[in-house]
């Protein structure tokens, strides 16, 4: 049983979905209950990872490997390292909470809705667990479909536009990514004489810079659209605005991380020469810095609550990609931590918009104001989420931003200086949003009797707040978990750098001189 831990984690939501399909559609409460059980079970089965995972072990752990399509060389290989560990745990938790948050929001086609969520859950977990490119690609594409329907069926007024835009945009990216994958696949055949999609095998490839660059850009399109990096980000505000709350939460917290994960897992170690190519680094860092400042500035002027949070994601993800292409330990580790942080903070921010939306059915910021008077618990939770997103020390965001800045600073001081603008602007747009929605007087009579958070809603926020505080106060375990995988990536990308820095790996904390 336990040697299949990852497969159990991967397929529990799918199994839950199949059982869900057996429940008659009219029994909506039973469907809701079952979906929540399945969602929670999906989270529960991932918990053994906390003690099964060995932070000192090198390489991938809990690996399972089976032949799948031998004629193609495609295998079922799953495994985790510190990076995927954190993302898997984020996925299982956010997935369960997203399902819990939908209880009263979704009243139509309830069965199909939850089925889509559970299917999506398996898709996303597969992306983070797969160690075979073919398998990865299958899961990558699987994720598209449920999200398309979630936006397109349960979304807002312009749901069709948003859903199609989301689907086509990301699909276009994945097609190019597929071309990149196939290039590696055929190159591998040329060099070794057999076909395989296995990542570990593909890493043995010795490709000239030219080919690496082509493949890098092909991957780039796929991942950059997903992240999304400037200027490929415009599908995001539309998708977020139209998606139902839980869809936005999943989209922001997890789906976007598939892009950054792709860069870390595939672009860097598979294409090391291209990844340190100064021109490529300059472009990628440039786009990240633009995203940070630009996303924040655009955020500042949004009149739509959800759109504001969506653009803030662009800014925050800019930090994540900046960390990756700082190409040093703190940049990478900070990026992964910030990906988790963004999942927590922005997840909360979308849940917060959703709660207001469920009560008032509008996302226009001008419709609100003074909510803190009638919804004090809600205002408190919002304040915590805002501060976590703005990077206040002792909450999670600070650790991520600070570590990324440290990495960026090490690579180029100017990068860090520009990125720090994002910290200032981040405070500005969040505080202004908070002021316009929560503070002041209640000017709209419709807001006078809004009910405060109920117990279920509080239960959705509680674990996220606890997690935010944990990372903020005691982030050490996260750095420990990330140390090995980051080392392995850097060993491939910048071997000589790593050799020198690792003189310290065994040493106690502090400075060696």
């Amino acid at each position, binding site marked *: 049983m336990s040697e299949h831990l990852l497969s159990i984690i991967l397929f529990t939501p799918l199994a839950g979905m199949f059982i869900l399909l057996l429940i008659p559609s009219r029994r909506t409460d039973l469907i809701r209950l079952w979906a929540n059980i399945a969602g929670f079970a999906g989270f529960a089965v991932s918990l053994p990872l906390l003690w099964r995972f060995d932070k000192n072990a090198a390489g991938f752990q809990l690996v399972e490997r089976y032949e799948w399509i031998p004629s193609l060389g495609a295998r079922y290989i799953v495994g985790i390292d510190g990076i995927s560990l954190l993302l898997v745990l984020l996925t299982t938790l956010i997935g369960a909470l997203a399902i819990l948050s939908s209880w009263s929001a979704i009243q139509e086609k309830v069965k199909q809705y939850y089925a889509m969520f559970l299917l999506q859950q398996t898709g996303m977990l597969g992306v983070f667990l797969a160690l075979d490119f073919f398998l990865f690609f299958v899961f990558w594409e699987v994720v598209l479909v449920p999200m398309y329907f979630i936006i397109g069926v349960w979304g807002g007024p312009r749901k069709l536009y948003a859903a199609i835009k989301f689907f086509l945009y990301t699909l276009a990216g994945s097609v190019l990514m597929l071309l990149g994958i196939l290039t590696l696949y055929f190159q591998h055949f040329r060099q070794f004489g057999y076909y395989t999609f296995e990542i570990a095998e593909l890493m043995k490839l010795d490709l000239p810079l030219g080919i690496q660059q082509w493949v890098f850009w092909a991957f780039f399109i796929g991942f950059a659209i997903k992240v999304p990096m400037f200027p490929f980000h415009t599908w995001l505000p539309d998708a977020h605005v139209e998606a139902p709350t839980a869809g936005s939460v999943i989209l922001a917290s997890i789906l976007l991380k598939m892009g950054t994960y792709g860069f870390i897992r595939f672009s860097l170690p598979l294409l090391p020469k291209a990844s340190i190519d100064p021109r490529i680094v300059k472009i990628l860092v440039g786009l990240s810095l633009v995203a940070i400042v630009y996303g924040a*500035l655009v955020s500042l*002027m949004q009149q739509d609550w959800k759109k504001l949070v969506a653009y803030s994601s662009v800014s925050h993800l800019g930090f994540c990609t900046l960390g990756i292409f700082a190409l040093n330990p703190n940049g990478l580790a900070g990026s992964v931590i910030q990906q988790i942080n963004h999942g927590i903070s922005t997840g909360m921010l979308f849940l917060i918009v959703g709660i207001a939306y469920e009560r008032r059915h509008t996302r226009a910021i001008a419709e609100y104001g003074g909510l803190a008077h009638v919804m004090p618990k809600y205002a408190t939770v919002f304040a915590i989420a805002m501060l976590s997103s703005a990077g206040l020390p002792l909450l999670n965001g600070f650790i991520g931003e600070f570590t990324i800045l*440290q990495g960026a600073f090490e690579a180029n001081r100017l990068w860090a200086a520009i990125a720090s603008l994002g910290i*200032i602007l981040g405070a500005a747009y969040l505080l202004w949003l908070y002021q316009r929605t929560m503070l*002041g007087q209640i000017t709209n009579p419709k807001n*006078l009797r809004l009910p405060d958070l109920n117990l279920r809603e509080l239960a959705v926020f509680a674990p996220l707040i606890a997690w935010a505080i944990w990372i903020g*106060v005691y982030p050490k375990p996260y750095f420990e978990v990330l140390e090995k995988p980051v080392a392995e990536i850097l060993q491939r990308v910048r071997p000589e750098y790593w050799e020198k*820095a690792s003189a310290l790996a065994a040493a106690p904390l502090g*400075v060696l001189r």
Partner: protein
Amino acid sequence: MSFLELLWVIPLAPLAGAALMLVLGRLLDPQASSQVAVAPGLAADLPQPHGHGSGHHRHGAARSLISLLCPGTVLVSFVLSLGAVFELSSLPGRTYELVQFTWIAGLPFLTQSGAPARFSADWGFLLDPLSAVMILVVTGVGFLIHVYSVGYMGHEGGYYRFFGYLNLFVFFMLMLVLANNYALMFVGWEGVGLCSYLLIGFYFHRKSAADAGKKAFVMNRVGDAGFILGMLLMFSVFGSVRFREVHEALASGRFAAETGSLGVLTAIALLLFLGATGKSAQFPLYTWLPDAMEGPTPVSALIHAATMVTAGVYMVARSHLLYRLAPEASMAVAVIGAFTAILAASIALVQNDIKRVLAYSTVSQLGYMFMACGVGAYWVAIFHLYTHAFFKALLFLGSGSVIHALGGEQDMRRMGGLKEKIPVTYWTMVVGALAISGIPGFAGFFSKDEILWQIYSSPHGSKAIYVVATLTAGMTAFYMWRLIFMTFHGKPRMDADTLARVHESPRVMTVPLVALAAGSTLAGWIGVPKVWSFLPESFRAFEHWLAPALSTQASHGTEHAHGAATEWLLMGLSLAIALAGIAIARHLYVVRPERVAALRQAAGPLYTALANKWYVDELYDAVFVNGLGKGVGSAMARFDSRIVDGGVNGAGWMTRLASTLSIWWDTWIVDGAVRLMSFVVKAASFPVRVLHTGSVQAYALVIVLGAAALFTWYLVR
């Protein structure tokens, strides 16, 4: 268990109070939840709060609990601080470090010099003479202000929320001053900023309060970005952010030889100072502090006068070795301090809001502290920080008592003649005014005079800065006594109704006033001028106490480059200027008040500029808020939806156009060819088709006709 080992409890006690208030406070004080602020006209829609009247009684006990608990936690911290400082005084080297756990542990990496390093920041505390002074000020003055708040906030809603925030503030402030490294100091640094935001916006139903809180937070963030970058640069140079290690590296001089440039040090020092200008409201980041007066008055006293705003001074003093090695940065500190001091004092001359006068005064006094830092007299900066905490807290709490007595009035033009009505407030405020004006014997005299003397005599000092500082001292005396005279002397200018209800504040408020007045009188006597050699050395204990922390040798007697005669002369000069300021204020606001208007006329545009605070707020609004923020933001938002998204939609449109064209092509050309073919075939087959009518009669007719034709042809042939 010694007090030193309990160091970690000092910040945690108020945190416990805060946690209790913010999590359970609502249960203790549910009255708060029924307070809904609505725009006029909506009030009728409100659900009526049930049991409002009886609720007051029921929750009286709960309120008493809050009133005991929250000041109590600060008292606990104060007692523990006293104990710890007492034990510290007998430790060799007077330093005690307590590390609890590693807070941030980064990954190993290479610094720019190529050395491997690993970022690490402890959750650790450092008690040395410098932090000792700070924790005593924070917990001591903090406790008095908590007690005062019990009275001041007694009638207000959100009682638990207020005390929760206030306790949280004390926690973060203690973290700030007790941290043993810059990163943890930054936790306190940002944390006090948060509490400041929460407390400025305490009356958040007022837009002005919410605006002021936001302004404070965002402006501080600008400084914080500088702090973070300074910290990163510091780490890349020294490989540590721990005070002790940075200190050792700087003291060893090893580092200067290694990098061979002092430019880096100047950069670190200036970046950190950018942080200090934000937190301590110095030019150019000072405009948030006057607006912060939107908060309840005890908050102004505690956060925006006595403690938080002095954090920048503390941080610079904490980094004194760095600033010593970066003379350009030190010069910048002194110049910014001097400029801010006179700028703020000039604005304070004409303000009419009693709290705003005090706010500008605080900005100005902080400028003095930075001047002292800039000329290398760190202990004097801390000395002024310490005396200022007493008299400025006193003045704020006194103004709060006045506002309380007048039912919320803050405009001094509607005050006057309160001297006899609220005597305790009056006399304590007079003590505060004497102290800030620098009248000998009162606390402010000792510290301010020492600053002036140091600016004049220190090798890093400057005569120009001295002139500015002395002028500012005169302005200080003027605006402060203008405040006293406008508020308490002359004829009452409020309406009769308000006048009838003027009352002295309750004991819970006046006792802290008296205690602070005592402090404002006595606190300075541990730092008397060196020329007062008739007093024993113990009257100069403050400098000696701080000497180990600031790595200075406390100088004995008057062996300075400048003679004792000069010092006496300067002392006399500053006293004369202060007395002149008081005299002018008295002349204008008590003896000949009608002259004020004439003077305003005469000053013309200068007066207008002062009254409008030199238009700095307007400038910032135009350039940063509306220009770079909203202006560029809207432009970017338009760019995003028109150009970037326009590109995407354009691609979609192009695809659809191509698709439409393809359909047309498909319909008319591709399918057209097929249909043309069919048409041709059809056309060609037309003659044939005409015959194929499918009608038997027709066929029969054709057969008959054909047969007839054949027959005819046969016959004819």
